[in-house]
């Protein structure tokens, strides 16, 4: 079983890295880009000891507790069974 965790900055938080990337891609000619926001992606492999429900609860808690700083970030978890 694999879990994919996407950590993104809250919409209210400025993202200077995203802005720098936006500027760079425009400079080299990519047009039509309205905005770029940078985030983090984690791929977690689970062993087979957990049920799908337990794994989901487990990963969601881990994502909230460790992988995300709730002051500035949101997260989304996808489980691949």
């Amino acid at each position, binding site marked *: 079983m694999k879990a994919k965790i996407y950590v993104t900055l809250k919409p209210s938080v400025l993202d*200077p890295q995203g802005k720098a990337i936006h500027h760079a891609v425009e400079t080299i000619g990519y047009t039509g880009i309205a905005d770029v926001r940078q985030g983090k992606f984690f791929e977690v492999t689970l062993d087979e000891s957990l049920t799908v429900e337990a794994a989901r609860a487990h990963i969601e808690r881990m994502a909230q507790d460790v*992988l995300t700083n709730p*002051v500035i970030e949101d997260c989304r978890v996808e489980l691949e069974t």
Partner: protein
Amino acid sequence: MKFGVVVFPGSNCDHDTYHVISKVIGQPVEFIWHRQTSVNDCDAVLLPGGFSYGDYLRTGAIARFSPVMSAVKEFAANGGKVMGICNGFQILCEAGLLPGALMRNANLKFVCQHINMRVETTDTPFTALCQKGQVLSVPIAHGDGNYFCDTATLEELKGDNRIVFRYSNANGALTEGANPNGSLENIAGIVNRERNVMGLMPHPERASEELLGSNDGRIIFSSLAATLADLAKAS
């Protein structure tokens, strides 16, 4: 009175901080290894600057799970004085001992330079000997020092007089140009609600001796030592 300096893997200002306490302030000090489960009999605990655990994931994010941090939290909950400098400030925020977060500098650069910071309150154990409005020249050296918190938290910090230092120019004016990292309202250091836990991005331990170009940072350590001496006398 005894000071403790926590050593995480990747701390790199631990010896500077230790040196200032032992040689400049002249007080007993010991290192506290991150695997320790107690802060021993220390009266103040300092979290030094550096790059704990390589700053992987987020600055301070892994350090907060060190065994010693449970002890630091308990120490702080019992009124113990805790100061986090630079990476130490980042760890205190991640650990929830201080509100907010330190984000990537707005200009995306690692900034290493002397800055000026204005003392906003003397009502803390760390600034008790300062004058309100006093400007201290102290270096910064960080890539993630851009203080951020939500509006409600900011209002609370202001209402409770918990912003301890703000980046200013040499005359104490809070200008945009004096803000080296994009911090909200030029915030350089804050204190918790109980006023016994402070975090700041600038490095007072690197400006505590004339030889280093400024000894303005010394007053922060002297304030803490004076507070501890008063507490010892009172008990």
